[in-house]
């Protein structure tokens, strides 16, 4: 979803029973990458996250899960859990890269409860109320 006020894109994560929503502001190219993965669009050439997935596939590494661990004002944190040669690894990343990679790896996406508590849902509701229909572009799936 495009955020016309901040000239940025928002990825909205929902929990399984649809009771919580977690908005994450991401850059344009990351939003486009996440959107392509959601729509299962295969671009003619591998995009950066397809290349990232290709890198992991080439060395036989698997993404087990990704966890959004902290959303501060300007710095967002996520962890990618992987297995490689029978060992587990945890790699620090931005949530946008973690989500784009998880969607391509059929890996689950989690958020720490503290992250969800921190994001007052009122803030998002208010923001959503101000949205006009034309703000909903292709990136809203």
């Amino acid at each position: 979803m495009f955020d016309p006020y901040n000239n940025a894109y928002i990825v909205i994560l929902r929990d399984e029973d649809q009771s919580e929503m977690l908005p994450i502001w991401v850059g344009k190219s990351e939003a486009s990458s996440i959107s392509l993965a959601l729509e299962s669009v295969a671009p003619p050439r591998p995009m950066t996250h397809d290349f990232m997935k290709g890198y992991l596939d080439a060395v036989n590494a698997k993404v087990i899960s990704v966890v959004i661990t902290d959303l501060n004002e300007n710095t967002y944190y996520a962890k990618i859990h992987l297995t490689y040669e029978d060992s587990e690894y945890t790699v620090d990343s931005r949530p946008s890269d973690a989500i784009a990679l998880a969607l391509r790896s059929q890996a689950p996406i989690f958020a720490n409860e503290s992250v969800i508590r921190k994001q007052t849902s009122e803030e998002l509701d208010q923001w959503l109320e101000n949205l006009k229909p034309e703000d909903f572009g292709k990136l809203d799936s």
Partner: protein
Amino acid sequence: MQEHTSHTAESLLELTVDRVVEDPDTDTRILVLSRTDGKTELFMIWIGAAEGESIRRALDTSVTPRPMSHDLIKSFGEHFGVKTERVVLTDVKSSTYFATVYLESNGVTRTIDARPSDAIALALRCQAPMYVTQDVWDRRSGQNLDAWLSKLATKNIGTQEV
């Protein structure tokens, strides 16, 4: 992963990134490559803005507060002990360039198909050499880069062409 014929050293030319130029008419960047053997001819490839900025950051060795996408790929390699050994620009079809990234771990080499922008953004972060095949070099665009750049500068002043 793809099967790839190995190129003999004789048919490969080593490249270095000369600069990344903005194309004000489109949301793209122009990656300007030059040869390490001192030849002055250049080679240019149109790439996405995000990939261009990623390459520019690698050249500046500027550090962002959070890892960007290519930093993350480099980080995977560091965690696993996988080395980005080299990248090769292997083909060009209707102005689209193809690259292969060579990874090495435990004595095994694996290859990945990539766009040149991703391959080079990763290679620069891993201090891996970058090559182009003689064939792709001979078919490159960018021979008249200087003329093109001055045209670009003029165009900036006037109205935008589509």
